[in-house]
């Protein structure tokens, strides 16, 4: 039988993202200070902490509603470019998921695909511009196969930003000097999919234990 995921699974995913962002905040800030303005770690930490708090206070009933609420919270809390971009990613993904009480991995991949498209439209960036899309686009493709494939694709995508020259966002002001640094946005995007893989593994072993 195809495994399905409920609202609680998505709440746990976002809690795991909050933990990962908290753990990696200094590294994200360090990457950002090389080619940006040294605030990426602090901003995402603040944003995902607020998401966790909101979801705990008033847990939405469906996976779609969880992501929509999380996206709205990021837009209201983070600021900078990452607030609207990550907020739009989750909000659009949530809206695409609709009202289903349980969703499959394939549905999640499909919905994330529309979320990533919305991010690309909002920021006007494409794959290869040295942005979060360099991790997000391959990750969504990977998710059609497995959670593990999404995670590795995102991590490889983030690493592949190192030789790129930035064409969007603050790093683009550096021109050639942005080459040789890993993009902080692609790095944080990879954290999202690492957390998703972790939670999916926990879920799978929990399900086996129960059967």
């Amino acid at each position, binding site marked *: 039988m195809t495994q399905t995921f409920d609202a609680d699974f998505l709440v746990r995913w976002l809690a795991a993202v909050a933990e990962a962002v908290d753990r990696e905040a200094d590294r994200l800030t360090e990457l950002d200070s*090389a080619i940006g303005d040294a605030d990426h770690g602090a901003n995402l930490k603040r944003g995902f902490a607020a998401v966790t708090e909101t979801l705990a206070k008033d847990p939405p009933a469906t996976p779609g509603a969880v992501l929509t609420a999380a996206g709205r919270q990021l837009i209201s809390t983070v600021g900078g470019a990452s607030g*609207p971009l990550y907020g739009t990613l989750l909000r659009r993904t949530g809206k695409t998921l609709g009202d289903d009480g349980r969703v499959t991995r394939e549905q999640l991949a499909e919905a994330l695909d529309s979320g990533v498209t919305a991010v690309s439209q909002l920021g006007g960036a494409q794959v290869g511009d040295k942005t979060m899309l360099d991790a997000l686009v391959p990750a969504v493709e990977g998710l059609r196969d497995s959670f593990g494939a999404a995670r590795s694709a995102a991590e490889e995508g983030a690493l592949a930003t190192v030789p790129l020259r930035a064409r969007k966002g603050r790093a683009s002001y550096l021109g050639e000097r942005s080459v040789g640094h890993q993009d902080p946005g692609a790095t944080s995007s990879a954290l999202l999919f690492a957390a998703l893989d972790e939670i999916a593994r926990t879920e799978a072993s929990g399900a086996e234990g129960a059967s």
Partner: protein
Amino acid sequence: MRMLINVPETVVADALRGMAAAHPELTVDVERRVVVRRDAPVAGKVALVSGGGSGHEPLHGGFVGPGMLAAACPGEVFTSPVPDQMVRAAAAVDSGAGVLFVVKNYTGDVLNFEMAAELAEDEGIQVAKVLVDDDVAVTDSLYTAGRRGTGGTLFVEKIAGAAAEEGAPLERVEAIARRVNERCRSFGVALSACTTPAKGSPTFGLPEGELELGIGIHGEPGRERRPMMTSREIADFAVDAVVEDLRPSGPVIALVNGMGATPLLELYGFNAEVQRVLGERGVPVARTLVGNYVTSLDMAGCSVTLCEVDEDLLRLWDAPVETPALRWGR
């Protein structure tokens, strides 16, 4: 790095509480992060709302008051504010004559102000936007996020703010703001990096004896690094970069701006060199402003902004203004 703070997390809120105490003529909502002139909304008048990351003080909160901004929204350090703040500010200052958002061209600011404009319009507020992109160090092309908004912001806020204070309708205030931006160019130089409270160490390493040319206002490295130059050489380089791009045919207003940690003694000395170069290039200077206005925390360095003015713009520049950081004519 030693900083005069409590903890990094409360830097912005602490500053706002202090600002509220120092400026009873402003309404400062510390929790919601909106600074509003106390007499807003002013009947029949267009209101200017700006905002951006903190760390550039006195921009933008220090420019709130009669003759300039009606409200400002401070974000976290170097981080654009969120749409909720801008909508709240717009609602607080709109008299029904409409609101002009003054937006510095950075991806985050642009995205958040766009979202805010939509939300404010949903609430029945008429909103226009002007984008400030005066920094000549960035090539405006498909391969960058476009030119940055830096010192030109002060000119847009002052001159369009004066037009609003005179009672000009939204369409005209917006047109003047655009005209000012089109006639402003800036170039910045760093003698040291700055330190954000969150990071606690300099945003980039700058070896002794070198400087960074073509910097922005967020501690991001500039276009190139060179061996240290004298005030005279820096003025030649910066003014030439601005004049070659602006190609002014009439008089200019010059802003010789400190990045935060450069003493006024040095800035005035630098201004003497700036005036010399402008004289040599045959550019008449109508007015000059020297000081720390669009800063980058504790960065040492300076920027030069030139704004080409006609009679109308010069009159609006000279019009009375009464804000914490700019105050004349009253």
